[in-house]
């Protein structure tokens, strides 16, 4: 049988994630239940909810923007490289770049962009882009030869190969790369906010935890958990389920 999705690990990853997300509602309900119980017991009485909400919104906005840029750039670069005859040449080059520890580069971002919103967003882009780029490149590189030959024989030559063959072929890889990328993106944005003292969820947690674990930091953790689960459940789980079904062997 043809392995429709390029990389075998992608498919295994898909299946396990689709299965795992079935339980996500239960986990989320549990988290909300615990938070509600703590609220009921008066544990969150001193939390500045408007400030927490604003901080989460700012961080989510930065992450969304960074993800959008990383998605466009990562997919475009991977498709162009995968389409060109130079994929094997670029692969080790990208491998070295992605191995650079992101946070070690943050001084560079601060030096060029200052303590700004743009700095955090571009720093996050530099972290999110790699899983997307590698997932797509792997999908293209490991696609079954027959599928590639079929595309060629039936006329997907030149630039047409990108929108009609390589892009749809890479769709499951874009999903899996995005999920990993966004997980890394949360860390990058929150981490950068903490390091650079820029308002956002990272800064909120840093301030709230300055004198140990506080009600505000616990509330913030619960809030982020709920957001992550909602995004996974409402966005990624249906997309993964559909992709897994469509691209099944």
């Amino acid at each position, binding site marked *: *049988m043809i392995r429709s999705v390029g990389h075998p690990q992608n498919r295994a990853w898909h299946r396990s994630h689709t299965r795992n997300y079935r339980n996500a509602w239960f986990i989320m309900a549990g988290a909300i239940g615990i938070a509600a119980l703590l609220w009921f017991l008066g544990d969150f009485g001193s939390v500045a909810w408007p400030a927490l909400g604003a901080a989460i919104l700012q961080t989510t906005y930065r992450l969304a923007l960074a993800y959008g840029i990383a998605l466009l750039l990562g997919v475009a670069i991977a498709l162009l490289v995968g389409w060109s005859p130079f994929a094997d040449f670029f692969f080790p080059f990208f491998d070295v770049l992605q191995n650079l520890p992101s946070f070690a580069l943050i001084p560079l971002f601060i030096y060029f962009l200052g303590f700004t919103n743009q700095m955090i967003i571009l720093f996050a882009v530099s972290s999110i882009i790699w899983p997307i780029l590698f997932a797509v490149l792997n999908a293209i590189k490991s696609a*079954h030869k027959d599928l590639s*030959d*079929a595309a*060629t024989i*039936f*006329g997907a030559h030149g630039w047409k190969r990108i929108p009609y063959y390589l892009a749809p072929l890479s769709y499951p890889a874009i999903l899996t790369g995005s999920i990993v990328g966004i997980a890394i993106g949360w860390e990058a944005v929150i981490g950068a906010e903490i390091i650079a003292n820029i308002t956002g969820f990272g800064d909120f947690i840093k301030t709230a935890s300055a004198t140990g674990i506080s009600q505000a930091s616990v509330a913030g953790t619960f809030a982020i958990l709920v957001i992550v689960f909602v995004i996974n459940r409402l966005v990624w789980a249906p997309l993964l389920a559909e992709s897994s079904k*469509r691209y099944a062997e």
Partner: protein
Amino acid sequence: MPNDMSHSSDMALVLSRVSARFNDEKKNVLALKDISFSLPKGSFVSIIGPSGAGKSTLMRVILGLMEHESGEVVRDFERPAMVFQNYALFPWLNARDNVAFGLRMSGMDRKKREHIACEKLKEVGLERLEDHYPSQLSGGQRQRVGLARALAISPDLLIMDEPFSNLDTITSESLKADLLRIWRSYGMTILMVNHLIPDAIELSDQIIVMEAHPGRVEKTLSVDLPRPRDVRGPQFFKEVDVLTEVIRKVS
């Protein structure tokens, strides 16, 4: 006829001493050595041989998907199509869009190509499955979609790489009958890689037997049985015996 190297206009394909090599960082292997044969227009030719004989590689060389190292390939066809052993359908497209893929690439408008795709699906008996995706189809149905995709571009050369090998007997018998009907009505040239001796004799005008390591032509046989062929007649079994003996020597 077997090794007619003339470049006459009645030949769809002429190969003269074609050699090809896999040459990458992992291996450097001579896959094909001095392959010579010709394919008369409108004929049905089968290639049979052990694994490692380079049959699939030969198909790729003929279609220009792989460079050959030496020799000459003269192609007198304009619209080649291929049916794959593993179907090679695009999983993101439904049956109709898979069939219409080649037409879409040629710039045909949506309405026209969908009409043709539906006609071709009907021709292979899948008129009610046009909205199904490959993952929702059985092996036989997928192979029929693959055949419809090839027919949609009105090919003058149809290459088939072991099209029945993943199918059960009943499905492959039915598909064989459809293939013969289609071949007669379209009048195209068919080159089929096969590993079943009776199938090769039932379908072909000419059978090319290949040897392995490196892949080379051992013998070319003409099948002169009248069509439609009686697959239970003594003449048929005699041809099977002859070919079996040739294959045994090659093995």
